[in-house]
Every structure is written in C-alpha cells, then in structure tokens.
C-alpha cells in the first residue's frame, strides 16, 4: 500500500514508453497505442480500489 504503489506506476510508465518508442520506430503505430492503453488499464487497475477505499473512508469518517 505504501510507497511501492508509486514505484510500480513509475515502472509501468517507463516500460510503456520504452516499448511504444521501439514499436513506433519499427513502424507499428497501432501496437504502440495498444501498449500505452494496456499500461493505462494496468495502472487504473491498481489505483481504482484505493480511490474507492479512500472515498468510503471519507464517507464513514465525516458521515457524509
């Protein structure tokens, strides 16, 4: 939960950018787009449960 989430996102970001660069230079544009999309989905998959947990905590804490 702690700092490793940030480093994981950073790792995915760097990986996706490298892969998309390689794919761009090798001429396959749509694959580069797909890899960046996959990176996006992966990061969202990690971050969304935290967001829902955060909003539940706020709702419970402040009885909104």
């Amino acid at each position, binding site marked *: *939960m*702690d*700092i490793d*989430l*940030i*480093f994981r*996102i*950073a790792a*995915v*970001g*760097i990986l*996706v*950018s490298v892969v998309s660069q390689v794919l761009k230079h090798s001429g396959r544009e749509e694959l580069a787009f797909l890899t*960046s999309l996959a*990176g*996006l989905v992966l*990061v969202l998959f990690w*971050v969304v449960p*935290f*967001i829902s947990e*955060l*909003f539940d*905590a*706020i709702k419970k*804490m*402040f*009885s*909104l």
Partner: protein
Amino acid sequence: MLKVAAIGLASALVAMQLKQVKTEYSNYIALAAGIIIFSFTLSKLDVITETINQIQSYISIDSVYMKTLVKMIGITYLSEFSCNICRDAGYSSIAGQIEIFAKLSIMGLSLPIILALLDTITQFLS
C-alpha cells in the same frame, strides 16, 4: 511526519521524471501519492473527531451543529483533493465546477443553522 514528507518528495521526483517521457503517468503518480498521504491523515482525523465528540459531551451543544461542522470539514477536504487532482491534470475548468458545487453544498448545509439563529433572535426581540 517524516514518512509523509518522504513519500511526497519521492513521488514528486518520480512524477517529474515521468513528465517528459509520458505525461499522463505523472498524474497517476500524483493521484497515488495523494491517496497514500490521505491514509496517513486518516489516523490523525480519527483523533480529531474523537476529541470533538468528547468536547460535545462536556458542553451541552446540540449534536446537529457538531455533525454539520464535521460534514463541512469532509466536504471541503474532498473537494480540495479532487480540485487539486483536476488542476494537476490541467483541467482547471472541471476543478472550478467541483469547487462551486462544494461551496453551494456547504451553504445548503448551513441554511438550517442560520434559520435557527434567526428564530432565536426574533424570540429575543419579541
């Protein structure tokens, strides 16, 4: 406190690095850092709400006022968090909308209290 500062600093540096390579990931890192730091503030907020309830039990204040007070704090915190995330992403128009809605909802919350105040004043006068 040290942990929060370290996490904030580390994520800022990593996000800065990722800004040139891929801009959207710096927003994700900012969001993740905000969530992690909020989980630390949560423990502090627990203590605050506990003391608020304790204070309320000592002084015989109507619980409605305390509840709306805590609700206002929650609304401001949530709108502040989402506004700043939207501004980081570069969409300050959305942040403005969230802010306006938060202000209106706080005003809506405080209306009954204003009415109660006016009632007591009119009772004193008449």
